[in-house]
């Protein structure tokens, strides 16, 4: 009979109308990203040994870091670590290259800003901010 496909299609839509929603009520319900999701990068300055592997691995020269030699040991300490997120591809090659686990992917995805200058992240300041927020829970 002509029109059988039409009625079958209407049946499918009616069936779906009666089923619960699959959407999430953002921002009241935040999605929970898996631990490997590389929506952002987080630095632990204490673990960094200033080996420059991350800066070399990056395709786009996003990472700039400086360090100085500490006296008493042959390790270097980190002075400054900036990432120019405007150039970042979010490819994760830097986090893979890090040997000590200082630079890890983090699951913060709300990174949009209004000014271009805010795209130059100072990773050590962000680490300090995270440490301050951690004991009282995430307030931001």
């Amino acid at each position: 009979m002509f029109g059988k496909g039409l009625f079958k299609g209407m049946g499918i839509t009616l069936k779906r109308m009666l089923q619960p929603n699959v959407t999430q009520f953002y921002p009241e319900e935040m999605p929970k990203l898996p631990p490997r999701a590389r929506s952002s990068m987080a630095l632990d300055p204490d673990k960094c040994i200033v080996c420059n592997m991350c800066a070399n691995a990056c395709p786009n020269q996003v990472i700039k870091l400086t360090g100085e030699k500490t006296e008493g040991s042959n390790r270097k300490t980190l002075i400054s670590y900036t990432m120019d997120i405007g150039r970042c591809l979010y490819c994760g090659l830097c986090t893979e290259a890090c040997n000590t686990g200082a630079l890890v992917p983090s699951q913060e995805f709300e990174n949009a800003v209004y000014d271009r200058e805010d795209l130059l992240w100072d990773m050590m300041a962000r680490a300090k901010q995270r440490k301050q927020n951690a004991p009282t829970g995430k307030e931001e």
Partner: protein
Amino acid sequence: MDALNQLPLSIAAAIRGLFGDPHSIWADLAMDIIAFILVLLIIVAAALILILLERKVAGWTSQRPGPNRLGPRGWFQTIADALKLMGKEDVTPAQADKWVFKIAPMFILGLPVMTLGVIPYGKGLVPVDLDLGIFYFLGISAVSTVAFLMAGWGSNSKYALLGGMRAVAQMISYEIPLIFALLGVVMITQTFRLSAIVDAQKTLPFIVVQPLAFLIYFIAGIAEVNRAPFDLVEADQEIVAGPFTEYTGLRWGLFFLGEYGNMFAVSAIAVTMFLGGWQGPLLPGWMWFFLKTGILIFVMMWVRWTFPRMRIDHLMHFAWKVLLPLALLNIVLTGLGIYIYQLLVPGIGG
């Protein structure tokens, strides 16, 4: 529930009683103005609710909630949309035909208001009880074709012109099966007056006697209102927005309101002619009317969100080669049926 049925009539009688002579010309004028304002309110309220219902139904078919932020579960969304549209800049294209461009939206909203004036909403609740009821409705809805053409031509844009031309072809093609489908009902009741047609369905709604006519009328009605699967007038994916491409702000809002008003008018006529109008047990008449119209509109939305769009030559083929012969067949069968009925049941003549 008869008290609720009588309530609007007693209010009307009370207002008439305020005048010295309850049937003077001033009382009639007052009642007409009140009826006009009520019809305007109905169409505006219908358009506001229907726009939101459309988005909600669209969401439900794909397991989403639709707009759900403003108001309880999102039901104030259209008010926010209307306020937003009022705040937009009014852009008229430079080379557009100014008068044609500006008058088109007024047509699109004004015509459904005119058609809604003759429909019986409840017992005795007809704003204007014309002898020519259904004929008047069909005449007015034929004029709405011109409004689309005005919008398309006056915009001075190729997309708009394509949309306007498609609108003309589609709407005049589907007028004819629409009219012939309704002719069957008129043959049975032998009157054009809508309140008489509703009264004639006291025992049996005409959908039982004329199922084919109802189907043809419904499909042609969807085509008249330019809804999917016949919405190539405003096909988003091909001609951006058809005749409405160059309209901004409140002018576009008027088009939108007019489309939903038209949808309401077509469903209201279907309810009146085929489904028994305002009659029904238990609930008052006007409640039944809006319930039935609402169900038909829901079916229209359900169809829209399921089917893809038809191509223009398939559309014309369907109108002229499928719907029109079926409508003519319906008339022949109705005529035969009336003749046989008159032969079998003695005493029914004329």
